[in-house]
């Protein structure tokens, strides 16, 4: 590990959204490279506070010396998780996939439960915070299989991710239509949770289990000539970075080589002359909140490039603020205060612009920012669809 390269300049600490609001977290420098010097494989992991890190990876983006504090902390989270009994909330959120699947199956009931006071009280009792409305489960999830919308020569296997699947399959279906409009043959391959929630809750074994299942499925599609396209930036980062990295998935590198961010892929199609979308007017001002994990993908901001070509659309970028929710992080009651504080800062900057919509690639960012601000949050794909006049109606 590269912690010896740390020159203790504290630039990472200045960029840590958690450190700024929660004095209990010693910051990425001390939790990462500093503490790592004293950690030994021979001793039991003892820094429970490593779980106060939300894994936004802002420290890694800021470090001038190429140290990866978040990665050091992530590894320590896995070690701690392995050597100590899992708490109920950690287990719950690591298994978010099964929980959501259950929620979707019983959607009317589950949504009713999560919206009543009694339900909220019970959620709080088990350590789940309820400051923003719990996302509504969707009864109708994404149907796997081939979407016979187009017969183009480009073939895409769409990794939609849990958020789209269980909560907002309408966005997922729009993305399928968007890709079809680019003359692409779309398939929804068999897929499971990407594994990131399990990783974030210190459960490497479970994360690997999910990752391996996905890897086998996606790998078959790559062999059959498909490109993988993901829409959720956190799923994407996990697939590109953690599959070949900390999870050591054998097919990891191969999958990373063939996986594209949705908007990156559309731009690729346009550049190759394969697709020629004609973007229509969308007269509106939007605040584009850049998810931390999009920054961490190191591909720039492709959705912004596409949106910049939409006539009438006025777009202001916010990439200095984290939304604070970080997937399951903010839903844990002991992180609630931290998540709200971080989110409010982002919201106060967005509100100053007078933007009509918040746009963000990440479902959990949208949930948090919409919950805290009351401004409707959209996926960039929804803006593109609006501009191209693509709807879910036939």
């Amino acid at each position: 590990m590269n912690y010896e390269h740390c020159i203790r300049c504290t630039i990472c600490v200045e960029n840590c959204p958690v450190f700024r609001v929660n004095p209990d977290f010693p910051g990425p420098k001390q939790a990462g490279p500093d503490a790592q010097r004293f950690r030994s494989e021979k001793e039991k992991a003892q820094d429970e506070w490593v779980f106060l890190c939300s894994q936004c990876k802002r420290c890694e983006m800021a470090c001038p010396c190429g140290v990866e504090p978040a990665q050091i902390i992530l590894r320590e989270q896995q070690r701690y998780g392995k050597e100590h009994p899992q708490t109920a909330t950690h287990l719950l959120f690591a298994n978010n996939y099964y929980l959501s699947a259950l929620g979707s199956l019983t959607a009317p009931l589950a949504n009713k439960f999560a919206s009543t006071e009694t339900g909220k009280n019970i959620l709080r009792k088990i350590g789940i915070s309820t400051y923003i409305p719990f996302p509504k489960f969707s009864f109708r999830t994404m149907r796997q299989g081939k979407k016979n919308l187009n017969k183009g020569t480009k073939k895409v296997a769409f990794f939609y991710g849990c958020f789209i699947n269980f909560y907002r399959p309408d966005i997922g279906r729009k993305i399928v239509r968007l890709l079809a409009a680019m003359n692409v043959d779309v398939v929804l391959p068999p897929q499971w949770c990407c594994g990131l929630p399990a990783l974030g809750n210190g459960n490497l074994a479970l994360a690997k289990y999910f990752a391996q299942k996905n890897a086998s499925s996606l790998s078959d599609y790559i062999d059959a000539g498909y490109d993988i396209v993901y829409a959720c930036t956190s799923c994407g980062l996990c697939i590109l970075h953690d599959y070949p990295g900390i999870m050591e998935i054998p097919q990891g590198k191969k999958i990373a080589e063939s996986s594209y961010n949705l908007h990156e892929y559309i731009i690729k199609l346009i550049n190759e002359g394969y697709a020629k979308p004609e973007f229509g007017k969308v007269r509106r001002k939007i605040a584009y909140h850049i998810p931390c994990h999009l920054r961490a993908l190191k591909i720039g901001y492709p959705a912004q490039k596409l949106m910049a070509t939409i006539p009438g659309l006025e777009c202001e970028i916010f990439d200095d603020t984290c939304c604070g929710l970080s997937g399951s992080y903010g839903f844990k009651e002991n992180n609630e205060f931290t998540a709200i504080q971080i989110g409010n800062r982002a919201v106060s900057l967005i509100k100053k612009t007078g933007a009509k919509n918040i746009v963000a690639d990440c479902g959990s960012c949208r949930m948090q920012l919409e919950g805290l601000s009351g401004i409707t949050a959209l996926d960039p794909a929804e803006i593109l669809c609006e501009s191209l006049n693509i709807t879910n109606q036939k």
Partner: protein
Amino acid sequence: MSVTEYDVVIIGAGAAGLTTGALLAERGFNVALVTTGEPTACLSTGCIDVCSCDENPLTGIKNLPPEHPFHLVDEKTIRQSLNYFQTVMMDMGMPYAGSIEKNRSVVSALGTFKTSCLVPSTMEAAPQNNTDSIHIVTFKGIKDFYPGYIVSRRKNTNFSVFDAGVYSIMSIASRFEDKNFFERFIIWMDKLRIDEDKIALPAVAGLESASEIVNSIAVLMGKPVFEIPTIPPSMPGRRLFNALKKYFRKKGGAIYWAWPVVGTEKTGKLIEAVTTHSEGRPNSINARAFILGTGSFVGGGLTATRQDITENVFNLPVHISGPRETWFDNDYFSLNHGIGRAGIIVDSSMRPADSPWNNIFLCGGILAETEILKNGCGHGLALATAHAAAQSCAEYLSHEL
């Protein structure tokens, strides 16, 4: 519209890189900036040292040794670059005070005077000599600022300690933007009944709106207030970086973070693309021209080994003072370490000398013979050479079309 094709790619996010980027973007070029992380500008005092060897920076520059890169830039461009900087910073809500014809002093965290040319307006009221009495307001538990150093050096200096409830510079600075916190702070200060001429704060008065915050304290207390730059984490340095970054972005520049350049693609006399690490497909960005503003050793532009010094991005020939014995003076605190002269020699068009590349332009600390510590010319040189590099690069790009 490619994600990865630009007119210019800037390497390095310091004052030099961001300024060149903004200048080129203003001229209508499609600009991207790649950087390993945040620049050493974040660790700086935020002051713009132009040349601290003389009372008048312009005279100081004239007296620099002939090989100094400042001589590549004419006086008009130097003046223009500082004016441009002041306009940009005013636009970004972080005005700078000072004049190119006269250096001024800033009180350092050790109680000494630091000579600089342009300073953030939050430091404008700093005493220029030892006569003014000062009351320092510091914060409980703060680890990077000790008023004792200043009190022991200056007469008529006292200090009080405020309990902000948080103990890091960053956390206190972000509290200052909160209205309730600010009111609590002012009520507490009111009770101090300060007699001294001036009030000093370590540089923690906010992140985005420091200038307004310091102003309001001064108005409410009826006395001049100034900030004292701290050791890193340095808020004035961060504000400078944030403002330049915001301006660059406003002009349409794109920034790629955690993007250390590890390889290049070239044909003939041209660099075609730069590449970074990637778990998946090769991650590269194409451009017609490249600006190298990676700084020297701390910034990551140069690496020294036991034997020699290398340039990290394009492997350009590095100018060194001589064999290793000449790199360091025996006195650690000496300003005459030969290593301060290491860097890349450029021609008048800011292209690297003795190298085949036609589309690389250099600016800032990567240049040879700067001796930044000795001459006190870091940010000033960065801004001036940024203008020169942007000019050459723009001419090249227009000509190439």
